[in-house]
């Protein structure tokens, strides 16, 4: 994963709550075996509506998405994160998120920013008044800013996710460094495995 220190760009307010991952990327798109090209499917069931935020010319090219409470609930599909990033989003700001979505985002370098409902509302209004305003999400300093409007809020991020974002570390390499501990654990692990239960064709022996 690429290191992420600061996300800087224009923002688009979605102004919807409970946006689930089926809405972010409908299941029709999940048949693909590739990891790229999902941007075209982002919010695809809403994209026919000319009034939908992403269709407005002044929001084209935005890199920060602002959403309502409980963004990314539902299905575990990481395709939702791939779609947001492939479309060009690098950070999502909302009052709360689905747990699995947050995990998936951290693996791909999509920055998750939790602000209070009133702060998200204030940020939304600032962008609606002037969509050209620059939004800055600083992972290092843990602040989100609209410099031109004097808006600055601190956000929380767990220290490990912050380190991984800043350094672009991928989890598997980090875990493989702990191989001796995994081996020691496996030597004492009691849970049964599937050895001997199924034959080569998958039938119960």
């Amino acid at each position: 994963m690429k290191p992420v220190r600061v996300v800087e760009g224009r923002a688009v307010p979605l102004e919807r709550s409970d946006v689930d991952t089926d809405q972010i990327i409908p299941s029709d798109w999940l048949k693909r075996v590739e990891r790229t090209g999902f941007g075209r499917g982002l919010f695809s069931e809403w994209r026919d509506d000319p009034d939908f935020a992403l269709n407005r010319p002044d929001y084209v090219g935005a890199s920060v998405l602002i959403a309502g409470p409980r963004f990314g609930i539902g299905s575990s599909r990481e395709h939702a994160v791939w779609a947001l990033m492939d479309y060009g989003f690098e950070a999502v700001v909302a009052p709360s998120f689905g747990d699995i979505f947050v995990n998936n985002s951290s693996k791909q370098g999509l920055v998750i920013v939790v602000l209070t409902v009133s702060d998200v509302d204030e940020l939304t209004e600032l962008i609606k008044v002037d969509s050209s305003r620059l939004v800055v999400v600083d992972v290092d300093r843990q602040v989100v800013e609209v410099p031109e409007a004097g808006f600055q809020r601190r956000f929380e991020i767990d220290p490990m996710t912050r380190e991984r974002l800043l350094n672009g570390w991928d989890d598997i390499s980090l875990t493989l460094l702990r191989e001796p501990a995994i081996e020691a654990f496996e030597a004492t692990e009691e849970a049964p495995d599937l050895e001997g239960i199924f034959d080569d064709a998958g039938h119960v022996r």
Partner: protein
Amino acid sequence: MPAARTLFEKIWDEHAIEAPGAQTLLYIDLHLVHEVTSPQAFESLRLNGRGVRRPERTLATADHNVPTDPISTPVSDPVSRRQLEALEENCQEFGITVFPRGHENQGIVHVIGPELGVTQPGMTIVCGDSHTSTHGAFGALAFGIGTSEVEHVLATQTLPQQKAKSMAVTLEGSVRPGVSAKDIALAIVSHLGTGGGAGHVIEYRGAAIRELTMEGRMTVCNMSIEAGARAGLVAVDDSTIEYLRSRPSVPKGDEFESTAKRWRTFVSDDDAAFDAEIVMRSEDIVPSITWGTNPAQVVSLDGVIPSPDEFVDPDARSTTERSLAYMGLTPGTPVRSIPLDVVFIGSCTNSRIEDLRVAASLARGRHVADGVRALVVPGSHRVKRQAETEGLDRDFLDAGFEWREPGCSMCLGMNPDQLGPEMRCASTSNRNFEGRQGRGGRTHLVSPAVAAASAIMGRFASPEELA
């Protein structure tokens, strides 16, 4: 004396390899894999020259994408076909047992784990699917993960995890007759809201949970994620042990008894403290449906469609307006008067043999209403064979229901079983999100009993209404 621990803490402690910083490296006992969330993970393993660390702790099945037409019919969608082939190729390459379409053990991943007995108490179980919470019914810590985490588990058999908080949801007393596990699940999701369980592992407790069969407990745990909780748990008891006793993957004879003794330790200690405690009165739970576009929007079968005016919170009000518009519903409409186009009985929530028995008993000697398409999709080939042995397939077919091959089917509309725009469906599945069952489709979540009765009446109905 050691401190009292919750069931969740016991499983967590037993699987914590080491805890550096804020995250714990957790050992994963069982990794379930399906075709949709795995191909990119396998591809990445190949690109990085990595293998699967413990193929014997990994089990794969085709489910999300498979057509439910007769097995002899080829998969017509080339993109789906490619994904199903990729699962078989990947499993062969990495030495993983796989049940492809039509295999005697194939079925929905959360149905086959328990029925084969590979889901066992005290285990950590993950799968690239949010309804992995289902397996928590066995006192196993089971949760859904994304594709990067799938790759991580394939490569290392571990996951770095932040420890969740614990929540007890206690159902005091017994439910009234005619109230199903699905009604309990809907009541809990409605009570907690779609985000109420976020950051928590829920343990379901109380008489109404104890009195459920294992299949009923699976239905309740299945919908934990609909309340925002990644995992749901039920403590091990006699029902757990008896369900597992004759399953193919559990030890036999004396070894089973000694294993069962160990399983019985997977309960919360009497004095264990939870981070959050919710208490609900079971007698208040009634047969219900969802009316909106998130699973917390629940109304009694005897009720009417709610009005935005009932909500004070502006966010809830606008969500209600939006949901009503999408669902094509008018506030004040009696639920039982709403006509249906489709009835779907299936999914990892309600496609097991007990679900099919309930539905078939109502279908027997009756007929699906004119203009209604009713599908029954068993959760697995094992469920399908059992149902056919009992003659349930005849009950359904004679009543005008379709009797189809196993898979996830219309729960998420990845295969050809989809709703058309504005088609209204009573579905025993778990999500009523916009477009979930097909673009523009309108989903109402219901129990198998309500689904079957509604198919016959052509509108929402309960079994008591059937002549």
